[in-house]
């Protein structure tokens, strides 16, 4: 099966626009937070059916920090932000002004810095979506866990599949202080919310 759901080129263009502007704003936010220059690649944005997500996430044994955020308000759903542990270590320790070797993955302050960074990054995307659709989009505090792709997929099937069958997938590569990072954002709007989003963005089913 193709990993990308067949949507119209207009719908895909609009999603890419959301991804590009969101990535730009999140890079600006990250640069301000880390107090250094942040470069970004053009993000990869697509609508991926739930059953094909493992193809974009990697091998089932790949380990990720997963930050889980509920979306509430006029648009409802869930957002997950995935970051490789080694990259999370570097970003978290940079925020705390420490070296990556000093980063303790179980330390409360380290986990809090990661959560706050993702809160700000997801906020940047949601603010773009809100600007482009006119909807007020609220979200909850992230919860954080570390797990393998296989377990993450199981979680999606158990907890997400009843409300949503596809994810807006945005992967961006970042360059911070000569180090490359890539973070994946998965936004699962509930079925009705996805329809509302496309309508508000001016592209209906089949257009």
């Amino acid at each position: 099966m193709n990993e990308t759901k067949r949507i119209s080129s207009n719908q895909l263009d609009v999603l890419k626009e959301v991804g590009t502007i969101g990535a730009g704003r999140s890079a600006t936010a990250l640069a301000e937070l880390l107090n250094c220059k942040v470069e970004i690649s053009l993000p990869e944005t697509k609508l991926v059916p739930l059953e094909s997500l493992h193809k974009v996430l990697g091998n089932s044994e790949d380990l990720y920090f997963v930050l889980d955020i509920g979306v509430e308000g006029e648009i409802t759903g869930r957002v997950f932000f995935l970051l490789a542990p080694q990259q999370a270590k570097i970003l978290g320790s940079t925020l705390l002004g420490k070296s990556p070797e000093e980063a303790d993955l179980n330390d409360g302050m380290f986990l809090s810095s990661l959560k706050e960074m993702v809160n700000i990054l997801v906020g940047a995307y949601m603010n773009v979506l809100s600007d482009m659709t006119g909807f007020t989009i609220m979200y909850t505090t992230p919860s954080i866990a570390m797990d393998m792709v296989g377990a993450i997929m199981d979680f999606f099937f158990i907890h997400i599949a009843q409300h949503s069958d596809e994810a807006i997938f945005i992967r961006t590569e970042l360059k911070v202080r000569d180090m490359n990072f890539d973070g994946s954002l998965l936004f699962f709007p509930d079925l009705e919310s996805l329809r509302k989003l496309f309508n508000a963005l001016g592209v209906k089913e089949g257009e």
Partner: protein
Amino acid sequence: MPAKILIVDDALFMRKMLGDILKKEGFEICGEAENGKEAIEKYKELKPDLVTMDIVMPRMEEIDGIGAVKEIIRIDPNAKIVMVSAMGQHALVVEAIQAGAKDFIVKPFQPSRVVEAIRRVLGE
């Protein structure tokens, strides 16, 4: 006497960051709260000169930042509250200001922006 500030944010990291910025400028951090309910309790107990308030709070907590602003303003109509949130959407900024917040800072922020807003709201 330095102005007393109550910092409300669910993230320990952000409370520390804001606390460090404000202490460096001579403010006193009289307390911290990590959810809306705790913010209201600490406000009554500590009577701070100013509160910094995040909007996003843990899901289980029913009072979000804007709800806490409304309740604090109900208790003390002269309360000085500055929102500090990553949710900079127009409707939320308007709602917070209508609820009684005096300013709205979008995260991330430059330390000078926070200090300037707090000094202005305190009338310094």
